[in-house]
């Protein structure tokens, strides 16, 4: 990280360490979870008959319905938590980066509620593929600044947000959207997303009387994955992260930094990156704008390195097919990101014993993807 941001990161860490232990902050966050976001989000078992169609032999697949959270994805958990912190720190100006637009919408929403100025950096390519979210941010009073550098995607938006922060560090709070980037963001974002796993663990205990056999989530930067998994790390549950396999395993055809990348430093974190031999970060590819980050949260990289986290990939085609399947059999249109996690579970299904229970984080809903789906899927 540039030296200019070190004082800001130190201040942020200090403020976060006070806030996270402060009963006032925690109570306000709980109230907003319940009354504004609509937590707890339910867990829902995919109908047996639907799973049988896909070779299921009786195993149960439970969806943690983050798609039902306000604004349609888990991103709001983090955005509300950080925006509350911005307010506590007396920073009137909030900036954020966004890929699919979900984190941008979530931050714009939290800022609207809390009376903070909100500027969202979004790559020009993403603005094109996620137009409805751009309009939502505008309606919420946020300014969307198009980023035309690089390939106009998430990492370019993040670079630009960091440049803004360097220049406006005194009055600006940077709401980073994933469990990635410089310390303390990975830890803070994981803590704010952990509510997903805490709820799910209690819900699974209520439904089946034990923890599930596996916990599965898609992995881009990894906030939904670390959020649902962290409360299960000390259990016997398998932890399975599903990366974007894109259109193949060649560099630049996927966003599989854990499975196919190499260690390096990007955005202030030492983690796994999609990069070439000379250390240039290579633009990842995924049909879903929310997974095409070239790095991954450092906690997930550590869990993968230790073998605790199993890493799989689902391709663009599998994600698209799963989206259609889930829509037709369950009446749920998942975000393309989340469809990657479900796709990997469908692939495993024939191998799972009848008494197995798998918990999948359905991290967001797919309304934002209608444009992509229209283009990528044959008309019904």
């Amino acid at each position, binding site marked *: 990280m*540039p*030296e*200019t941001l070190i004082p800001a990161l130190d201040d942020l860490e200090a403020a976060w360490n006070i806030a996270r232990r402060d009963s006032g902050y925690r109570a306000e966050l709980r109230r907003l979870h319940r009354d504004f976001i609509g937590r707890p989000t339910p867990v829902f078992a995919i109908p047996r008959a639907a799973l049988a169609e896909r070779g299921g032999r009786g195993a149960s697949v439970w969806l943690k319905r983050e798609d039902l959270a306000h604004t349609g994805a888990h991103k709001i958990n983090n955005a509300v938590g950080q925006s509350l912190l911005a307010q506590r720190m007396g920073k009137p100006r909030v900036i954020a980066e966004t890929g699919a637009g979900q984190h941008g919408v979530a931050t714009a929403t939290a800022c609207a509620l809390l009376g903070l100025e909100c500027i969202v950096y979004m790559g020009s390519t993403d603005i094109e593929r996620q137009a409805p979210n751009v309009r939502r941010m505008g309606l919420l009073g946020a300014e969307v600044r198009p980023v035309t550098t690089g390939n106009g995607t998430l990492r370019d938006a993040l670079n630009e947000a960091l440049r803004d922060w360097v*220049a406006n560090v005194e009055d600006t709070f940077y709401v980073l959207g994933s469990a990635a980037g410089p310390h303390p963001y990975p830890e803070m974002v994981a803590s704010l997303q952990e509510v997903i796993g805490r709820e799910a663990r209690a819900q699974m205990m209520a439904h089946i009387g034990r923890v599930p056999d596996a916990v599965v989530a898609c992995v881009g930067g990894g906030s939904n994955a670390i959020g649902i998994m962290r409360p299960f790390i000390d259990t016997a549950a398998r932890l399975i992260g599903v990366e974007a396999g894109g259109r193949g395993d060649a560099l630049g055809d996927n966003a599989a930094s854990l499975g196919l990348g190499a260690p*390096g*430093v*990007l955005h202030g974190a030492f983690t796994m990156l999609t990069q070439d031999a*000379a*250390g240039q970060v290579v633009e990842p590819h995924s049909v879903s704008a929310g997974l095409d980050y070239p790095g991954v949260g450092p906690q997930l990289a550590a869990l993968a390195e230790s073998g605790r986290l199993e890493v799989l990939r689902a391709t663009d085609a599998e994600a698209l097919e799963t989206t259609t399947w889930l829509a037709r059999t369950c009446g749920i249109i998942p975000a393309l990101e989340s469809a990657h996690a479900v796709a990997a579970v469908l692939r495993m299904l024939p191998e799972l014993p009848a008494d197995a229970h798998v918990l999948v984080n359905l991290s967001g809903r797919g309304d934002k993807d209608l444009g992509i789906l229209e283009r990528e899927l044959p008309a019904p």
Partner: protein
Amino acid sequence: MNGPARIRRAFDAAAADARTALIAYILAGYPTEADGLAAAEAALAAGADLLEVGVPFSDPLADGPTIADAGRVALAAGGGLPSAQRLVTSLRGRGHTTPILVMSYLNPLIAAGEGQTLRALRTAGADGLIVPDLPAGASPRLERLAASLGLAVCFLVAPNTSRARIEAAANATTGFLYVVPLLGVTGARDTIATGARQLVASVRELAAGRVPVAAGFGLSTPAQVAALAPAADGLIIGSALVAAMRDGGHQRLGALVRSLVAAAVHR
């Protein structure tokens, strides 16, 4: 001569001439590898006291549009750390003895293992490193490696850097202490940031002669150089030289460096 000594000698020589050292930033491989070499030689011929060889990077988050855009051009033409290393080798092969500092973001330096990479840079003839996304103390291993190879390391300080961190940066720096006199990224500004001169002067006082103090980011014109020269041991010009290269090739770059060197003479 090891890197730190050669860098120190260049600052001392400029001071003996009653000048502030002029440090020219050349983006390696921009717009092609041959042009990068021509740009470096033009800067040296025009009297630059030290040379910074910039390594283009995919995610240049400390750089403004001029260097970021040029970096993309250089990368597309095959630029990167290997090509920057070839530039250093060529300059030494042509007999240039001016100190050369390689300015690279951290990731290209560690991708193939920092030991191997730093050794190769030193062998090529580099005297030091500037890593804009590496704060002092963040990688003791890299600092130790550089020291053992005789490569200087230069750390950056900004207007919001605490006194304690300026001290730490001055202690860890073995080349020159790089003062960024503004909050923001690289790139020409119409005016010098308010307080820039005072910041440079106070950092220089804190450094207390341990290492030379040079300022960069936002400087582009002879008038700005003349205004800051009395406060600093060195001044770094980057984006303005990249823009000159873009708009008028190495001839224009050489002419600009000549006027900047002249402006750095103490009056």
